[in-house]
């Protein structure tokens, strides 16, 4: 039995209907202004060995002056959300 890692899975999208989106609402994730980018953002952080993920999240909250931040558990990826 050969199982592939989840990131090797080839995902494909299919259309149900054809439709357009109104440019007046929302915005593409890559075009979000910096404040929203921070609010709905994450950092792929190279955590030094030693300090715990929890400590590193606390430092990031202080550096970036955030009220809320967390990390992806076993992903060990601090995720920044909701600036003060």
């Amino acid at each position, binding site marked *: *039995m050969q*199982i*592939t*890692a*989840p*990131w090797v*899975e080839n*995902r*494909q*999208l*299919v*259309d*149900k*209907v*054809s*439709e*357009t*989106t*109104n440019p007046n*609402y*929302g*915005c*593409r*994730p*890559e075009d*979000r202004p*910096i404040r929203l*980018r*921070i609010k*709905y*953002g*994450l*950092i*792929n*952080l*190279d955590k*030094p060995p030693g300090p715990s993920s929890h400590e*590193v999240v606390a*430092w*990031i909250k202080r*550096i*970036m002056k955030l009220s809320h931040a967390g990390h*992806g558990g*076993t*992903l*060990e*990826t601090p*995720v*920044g*959300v909701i600036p003060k």
Partner: protein
Amino acid sequence: MQVHADIAETTLRAVLNEFTGEIYQKPPLRASVKREPRKRYIYKIDVHEIEGRRVLFTCVCQAGTYMRKLCSDIGEVLSCGAHMQELRRTRAGPFKEDETLTNLHQLSAAQSDFEAGDDAALMKIIQPMELALNQLPKIIIRDSAVDAVCHGAELALPGVVRLDSAIDRNRLVALFTMKGEAIALGRSQLTSREILDQEKGIAAKVERVIMERGTYPAMWKH
């Protein structure tokens, strides 16, 4: 990994090879899960260097595999014992050691630039949260259905525009706008085929809303 006796390189490689594929692993004494043997899949073990009793390798494994335990189990099979010396996570889902990888110094410098009015560096470091969802099957929905979903409504079939071709029933799916914004996480109620072929019914139930209500106009009646 540090092996506790001098073992021939061919033996070492052969034993490491045995640890690919399906393995059984009992979580260590101090673990946050129940201590009973469980199955994990090791996709790949690549040996980079063997220097005396020290072995440097990359292991691509399923989530929840204990690396320290893997090393000591390898030691058991070698019958001399072995332990893990050092560990570095080089990948977790979509996160890997690429141009997005940032250290605390870079973050703090980018934050100072931002406070001085230049957000370019910070914009590069902070990734849209949609990145974390890119391994989930997606359903892309109409603008007119977005606000209802933001209020926790079930996603009805007429709201679906595009979708992953391989969705099963009762799977975790991510609901996206046509602009590529994540709206919510949900549970599929039908397969991709059924969603494509049918006109009436519920495609997914919302479990966790991500987008703020009111981002898109409400097209539904209170």
